[in-house]
């Protein structure tokens, strides 16, 4: 089907045919539900697809081939750190001892995972220069919420009830302001200086007794290290506020900069960025949060503890009364954390530092090669990613960044992040990561050159790109105006199970 011919297929619902499938589990006795009151029972359905295993498999195998992925090509999606996802990690997370462990297993049955989680906490604390780490948050955004809720608890614990504002640079990721809102704060946006850093004067002017925290992404979403970070942190602490670091860009600075050492009070880490756990088409990840001394009492519960005798256990409910409580069920996305642990052990200190060095080297290399091709608004060395802009190209040819991105698809590349950060016109945020070869980077530059030439010579080709993908540009307006969000009704008739 896919090696040739049309590559799109019907939905699983359209493939359904009443009576197909089955054979997976034994049949229960007929009266299994007789003891349950009739009004509690389901009257009809559910009308789920009925397909046999061959058709099911083909459905998903063929669908998978419609995806672009790290496993098939270069995916320089800025801010997302689409690095290699090592195969041994997938193997590890599936080990029966890890995968079949119940989250309520008594501690004595869970020593392997508890040890792994504890060691991972130590390693992340060391990398971040933090006092302690919680692995509970399920993703970066939840890490942010956890961190900001701790900030809130900290101020309240000191009777400091008037801190209602969280300061966020205008280049920040959308989760930062959204988090501040969820934690009951007002977001105050702080502008960027022309060099891409925070505008210090504006920043100082905004800071005050109402400031609960500042959320800083460092390196920033422009891929720049905040060189005035010392000044910033001093000013924050001077007004009694706390400094939150969005560590989504940690991949640039391992072994080079430890946020906790530098003075950050709290940070989150995206293991699905820096520590190679797969993005899964949108998730799952995990968003561990590191804290300094001040926030230690407020960490969510339960923590993983090591006893004097070397055994590990989970905190019991209520054991640490100042905790902000739970942010989710159980201890965290353990299956994801196994992968992060494996990644850290595979690298060690020298390896992680090399990861960051190579990520930064690759980004600067790509930037240097693209400098003559597109606008590169910030000329100083970037960290693991950099912003390019199609502003001049648009002015000259009418070709927008969107068109460039779509044309890249035809040339075999996943486009970079586009139109983010919001502070740069026609932005492309490009993050090559450390796991892409020089040949791959050069191939990407050549493709960009080709596209810029095409923008002059054959703009229509770009307006209508992509041409070679399984589908072409989509009608997003209709999708939003008349949303069709689920299939209703099956194509076949429903009849009882055949086997």
């Amino acid at each position: 089907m896919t090696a040739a011919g049309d590559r799109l297929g019907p939905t699983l619902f359209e493939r359904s045919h009443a009576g197909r499938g089955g054979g997976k589990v034994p049949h229960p006795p007929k009266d299994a539900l007789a003891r349950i009151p009739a009004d509690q029972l389901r009257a009809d359905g559910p009308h789920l697809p009925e397909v046999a295993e061959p058709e099911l498999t083909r459905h998903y195998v063929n669908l998978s081939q419609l995806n672009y992925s790290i496993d098939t090509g270069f995916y320089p999606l800025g801010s997302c750190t689409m690095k290699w996802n090592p195969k041994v990690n997938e193997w590890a997370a599936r080990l029966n001892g890890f995968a079949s462990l119940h989250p309520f297993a008594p501690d004595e049955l869970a020593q392997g995972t508890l040890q792994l989680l504890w060691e991972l906490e130590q390693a992340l604390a060391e990398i971040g220069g933090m006092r302690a780490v919680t692995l509970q948050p399920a993703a970066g955004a939840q890490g942010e919420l956890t961190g900001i809720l701790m900030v809130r608890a900290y101020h309240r614990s000191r009777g400091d009830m008037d801190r209602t504002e969280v300061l966020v640079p205008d280049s920040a990721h959308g989760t930062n302001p959204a988090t501040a809102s969820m934690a009951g704060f007002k977001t105050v946006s702080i502008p960027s200086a022309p060099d891409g850093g925070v505008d210090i004067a504006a920043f100082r002017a905004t800071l005050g007794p109402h400031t609960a925290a500042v959320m800083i992404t460092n390196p920033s979403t422009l891929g720049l290290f905040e060189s005035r970070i010392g000044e910033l942190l001093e000013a924050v602490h001077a007004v009694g506020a706390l400094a939150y670091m969005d560590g989504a860009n940690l991949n640039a600075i391992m072994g080079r900069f430890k946020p906790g050492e530098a003075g950050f009070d709290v940070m989150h880490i995206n293991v699905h960025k820096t520590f190679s756990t797969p993005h899964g088409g949108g998730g799952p990840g995990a968003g561990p949060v590191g804290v300094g001394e001040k926030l230690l009492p407020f960490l969510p519960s339960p923590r993983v503890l090591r006893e004097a005798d070397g055994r590990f256990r989970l905190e019991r409910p209520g054991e640490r009364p100042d905790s902000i409580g739970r942010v989710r069920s159980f201890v965290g996305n353990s299956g994801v954390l196994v992968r992060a642990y494996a990644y850290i052990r595979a690298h060690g200190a020298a390896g992680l530092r090399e990861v960051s060095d190579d990520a930064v080297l690759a980004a600067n290399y790509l930037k240097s090669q693209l400098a003559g091709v597109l606008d590169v608004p910030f000329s100083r060395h970037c960290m693991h990613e950099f912003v390019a802009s199609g502003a001049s190209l648009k002015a000259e040819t009418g070709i927008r960044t969107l068109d460039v991105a779509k044309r890249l698809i035809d040339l075999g590349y996943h486009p970079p992040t586009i139109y983010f950060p919001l502070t740069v016109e026609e932005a492309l945020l490009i993050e090559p990561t450390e796991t892409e070869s020089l040949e791959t980077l050069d191939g990407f530059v050549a493709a960009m050159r080709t596209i810029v030439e095409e923008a002059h010579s054959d703009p229509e080709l770009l307006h209508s790109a992509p041409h070679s993908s399984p589908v072409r540009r989509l009608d997003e307006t209709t999708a939003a105006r008349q949303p069709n969000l689920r299939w209703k009704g099956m194509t076949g008739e429903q009849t009882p199970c055949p086997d």
Partner: protein
Amino acid sequence: MAYGPHTPDDRAAMRKAIGVASTDELFADIPAAMRASELRLPPPESEAELASRLSRLADRNRVDLVSFLGAGAYRHFVPAVVDQLLLRGEFYTAYTPYQPEISQGTLQTIYEYQSMIGELTGMDVVSASHYDGATAAAEGALMTCRATRRERVLVSRGVHPHYRQTLCTYFGGADLVADEIPLVAEGPASGTTDLVALERMLADPERPVAGVVVANPSFLGLLEPMAQAGRLAHAAGALFVAVVEPVSLAVIASPAAYGADIACGEGQPLGIPLSYGGPYLGILACREPLVRQIPGRLVGMTTDIDGRRAFVMTLRAREQDIRREKAASNICTNQALCALAASIYLGAIGPHGLRDVAAMGAARAAALEVALAEAGAPRLHPGPYLNEFAVRVPDAAEVHRRLLGRGVLGGLVLATVEPDDPSLADALLVCATEVTTLDEIEVFASALRDEIERGRQLGLPGIAEASR
């Protein structure tokens, strides 16, 4: 480096092209005073060494006991096809489908996931996934506040304690109120949500209620009076949020059937491994009028410029990357791959298979009830249940601990998660699913009989009390 391609030559070539003599120069922006202290971590390991370390750690976990533990995370048989398809790199190494032209695989599978959960719950709109059942419940409760512009929800104590705690954390942050609906203390309805108390709580004109949250089956395994609770909520202008367990929905009335506005729950039972608590799958679904309140991604069907059917993320104006501080939630990364696992599981097992799974669990649980009662551990509540229930066991914690030594994981000691509820002081929450065998039930029951007997002979305090 373990996985990277760069050789010293490659690095030199890149430095040359950039025009720096050393990589250190690229980090010049880091103020000297702030450069990191030495990174102290264990040395790197080759894959062979790492694999053997990880195997040893995994082997330190004990997953070989006969287990009756559920309490929000359930053992089920997962057909082999599920994991083999999940291992396809095109799925698991892709990002959020921002470029729909080369993400139709992910997009169509999400649309199908939404459709399947739509069938199970009867809801019109299903988010592309949340972190887990607890956060999905919290987000569901927050939706009711946004939709009604009220600031208080009522949460049944029959909702999983982790969900209640998570909801409290989220509500505390948002300066909203979550009050607990008590459970009936005695009689045939004991252990289920107290409808009289609910009605009273809803009646307070000073503190209008945005939503009522009830779980079915409840944390204690009981089937709840969902229809009545929903009617009470609606009568007070509140929305009704059902916390559900998806496998049960193959046989138990759907949220739509009893009038829920929002359905949420933990999707782990749909083919996702236990993995010590995650990654799991937060199910969140709602009726059509609430579509603009639902947080998380939504995928819709549309066409491309050639008129071919295609799928795309839609109604994005609810999301943080578009709306920033005004977004419905800060959620960004979700649990998409777990949603894919659930879809493949449902596709593999089919509707009849899912009914078999649910009904077999019910049948095994009935056998377990009889066996445990005979062993001296009768049910704690009289009402109907599906496949999980609480039993009274004298000196439950000690008995449970001793059972481990006999190779039996005898469910959950309820006091460890509900330490403040005296009615649950000497109780175990036990569960059976389609993978529970009659032999295992026999092993459990006979070990339990021995241990209860032993405790009685020793005249342990718990036992003394129970025999009063």
